């Protein structure tokens, strides 16, 4: 058997001035050519482990380590990122800060040149990695013209250009839409299978990664909580409360079925074997919505200079208390629609009518945090509503991602009540627990009479909170109805549970109730 690529022996780490350990007593090994997914809630230590494996911990971040961690035989306590870079390529969440050159070709050449490779070998390596990762057609493009998915693909190509044995990725799909995210995971699997590159990826959307993974390492409070193949992990997750379980595994667990499936295909097979195969369900169309609109968009057009029309005569009306998921691929016009509704930009044609104040939370919560103390951002009451009571004097930039998101929402909601609340992609990089908390907050706002519209790519989240789903194509509304109607029968815009049950249910809870009734002899519809 080959020597492990990574060996950790009771490895612990504490960030400078931190009160608690970020990694505690980790003991694990990673084999060459394996595909490992790091799972865990936000703050569980996934990113810190990635940073330890590439040598940034402790050499870049400082802090104290104990125990041993070796990558390719190099002890990370004595070998920094520059030495470990020969063995591992590393890709972080935000592609904007990893791509450092103006041109794609120059970006791929940079790491090779830094290693002192000859111009001929640089040229060959660039050609090879560009073809292998499907970025050859981008070689002559400027990096500022690339989409988020293309930028992330380029960052991976740059990390792999010198053919490291280990590729480390920290939530690489968190900034991407579902299509680009899925493509990225399957590209990693192909790299893993064809090049034998060991892959370690930290990810929240486990349903996306599980089918590709050999093994899942789950972390809790910096410690190893589970280290098992996907099916073993799902069994553990079902017992540990289900927060990390995928939606179909959660559905099986709630319905008392076993073993938990690692993919939709497995779920459908298991249901067929159990005689629970669902028949295709025709969702009833939602009733026509009546009542005074809290927000009315009338024939809204938005065109950019020297560019195409982003919105093409959109008509949309939101009633008070309505919870709307606004969905569609990148570039469909979702964010533009929200910005027009808030009045940040003016429509080229058409009208926005609003009965009251509009609150808008933009995509990046950090943009809302501009003061030195958290309490200065939104006041003590709002801080309490964000679950940050007692953190009044904390600098907002020292808050975790989830805490920033909650605080930013309260900042946007300050000065209310608002008749319309708009949220733009609030679940990017969120773990399932935080998503559920956000769904409850949206319910509270709607119960108080606000019309809430959330632009999201996350179909499971939409099914969880929304009572209406609006689907956008290229600047047009191409679907508008109840969640079952829009998300039940879709192919791409569909939840994992809906795919497993042919649209008979959207969420794990709905699916489990349906299966429980079916097990009691009722038809599965």
């Amino acid at each position: 058997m080959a020597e492990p690529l990574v060996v950790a022996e009771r490895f612990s780490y504490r960030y400078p001035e931190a009160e608690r350990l970020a990694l505690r007593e980790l003991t694990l090994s990673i084999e060459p050519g394996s595909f490992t997914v790091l799972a865990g809630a936000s703050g569980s230590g996934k990113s810190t482990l990635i940073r330890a494996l590439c040598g940034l911990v402790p050499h870049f971040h400082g802090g104290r380590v104990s125990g041993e961690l070796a990558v390719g035989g190099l002890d990370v306590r004595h070998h920094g990122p520059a030495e470990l870079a020969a063995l591992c390529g590393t890709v972080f969440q935000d592609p904007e800060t990893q791509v450092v050159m103006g041109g794609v070709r120059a970006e791929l050449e940079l790491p090779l040149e830094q290693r002192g490779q000859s111009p001929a070998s640089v040229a060959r390596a660039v050609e090879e990695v560009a073809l292998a990762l499907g970025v050859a057609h981008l070689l002559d493009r400027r990096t500022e013209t690339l989409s988020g998915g293309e930028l992330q693909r380029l960052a991976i190509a740059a990390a792999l250009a010198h053919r490291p044995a280990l590729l480390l990725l920290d939530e690489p799909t968190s900034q991407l839409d579902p299509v680009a995210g899925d493509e990225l995971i399957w590209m990693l699997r192909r790299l893993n299978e064809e090049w034998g590159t060991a892959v370690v990826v930290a990810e929240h959307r486990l349903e996306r990664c599980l089918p590709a993974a050999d093994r899942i390492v789950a972390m809790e409070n910096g410690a190893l909580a589970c280290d098992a193949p996907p099916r073993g992990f799902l069994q553990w997750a079902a017992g540990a409360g289900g927060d990390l379980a995928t939606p179909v595994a959660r559905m099986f667990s709630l319905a008392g079925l076993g073993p938990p499936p690692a993919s939709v295909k497995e779920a459908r097979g298991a249901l067929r074997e159990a005689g629970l195969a669902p028949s295709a369900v025709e969702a009833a169309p939602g009733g026509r919505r009546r009542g005074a609109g809290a927000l009315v968009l009338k024939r809204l057009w938005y065109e950019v200079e020297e560019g195409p029309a982003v919105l093409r005569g959109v008509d949309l009306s939101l009633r008070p208390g309505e919870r709307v998921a606004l969905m569609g691929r990148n570039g469909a016009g979702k964010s533009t629609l929200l910005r027009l509704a808030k009045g940040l930009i003016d429509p080229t044609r058409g009208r926005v009518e609003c009965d009251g104040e509009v609150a808008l939370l933009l995509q990046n919560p950090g943009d809302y945090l501009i003061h030195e103390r958290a309490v200065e951002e939104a006041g003590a009451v709002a801080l309490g509503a964000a679950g940050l009571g007692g953190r009044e004097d904390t600098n907002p930039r020292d808050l975790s991602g989830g805490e920033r998101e909650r605080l930013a929402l309260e900042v946007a909601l300050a000065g209310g009540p608002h008749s319309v609340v708009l949220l733009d992609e609030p679940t990017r990089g969120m773990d399932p627990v935080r998503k559920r908390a956000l769904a409850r907050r949206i319910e509270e706002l709607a119960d108080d009479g606000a019309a809430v519209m959330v632009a999201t790519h996350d179909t499971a989240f939409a099914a969880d909170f929304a009572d209406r789903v609006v689907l956008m194509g290229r600047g047009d509304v191409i679907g508008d109805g109840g969640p079952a109607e829009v998300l039940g029968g879709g192919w791409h815009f569909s939840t994992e549970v809906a795919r497993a049950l042919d649209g008979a249910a959207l969420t794990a809870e709905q699916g489990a109730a349906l299966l429980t009734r079916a097990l009691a002899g009722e038809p599965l519809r």
Partner: protein
Amino acid sequence: MTLVPVYRQRPSPLHNARASAAASFCCAFALIGGLYAHPLVLGAALAGVLLAAGAAGVGREIGRSLRLALPLAVLIALVNPIVYQGGDTLLVRGGVVLGRRVDVTLEALVSGVLAGLRVVVLVVALGLLSAAVDPDKLLRVFRRVSYRSALTASLATRLVPVLARDASRMSDAARCRSTPPGRLAVARAALSGALERAVDVAAALEVRGYANAGRTGAARRRWSRHDVRVALAALLVAAAAIAARALGVGEVEAYPRLELSLGPAEVALAALLVGAAALPFVGRAARLGVAHG
């Protein structure tokens, strides 16, 4: 839309020439703006740059540079006669401002116009450099001399638009607050955000082995016909400009009376500038994708 042109790869001889040659070509015309105040020479240099920009397919971008330069030139042309009182030909007799007599003379006015024209030539030539020379390739030339400085320049080129987008987003977020904060608070937050980005970029560079980086070897790339023609044109412009200046061609004396030399030498220099600007783009050899020796 930005007034400073941004490089995009295009199918033109200038874009396809090596960065050092293309940059020299643009800088040679900028040199004219630095060395001469003669209107015919400056006009020819401006015409040359515009001709090259049009032939390289970046006419619209250079038009934007012109929009940046013209107000500046007009300002210089207007301010110069007000602040400088030299010249014998009085155009306007002004009053006394702050104990100082303000008269406008023809010489000061013309001198201001010529100074403005020099600025236009400089801005437009550097605009052509920005639009037609790949900054990564240009910085690679400098990386052989000072790796870290050139990489810092690359990073700045790449990150300035990113940080500008960050600041614009923060400004939008500020407008979403019930009580919009002051500009200073937003600017301070944008600066903090820039520092955070800087830390992230530093981490990204670390894991790519930046700490072990050394000087890069020069790639031995053969000179293409475009390299040769562009470099030759640059050499012609620079050599002619320096030699003619040394010989006193294109002399302009603004004060006390306007005197400028206008003879065969000036006309020849102007013709050479326009001809050299066209050199990379004329003939069958300028076509892309066609092999010629």
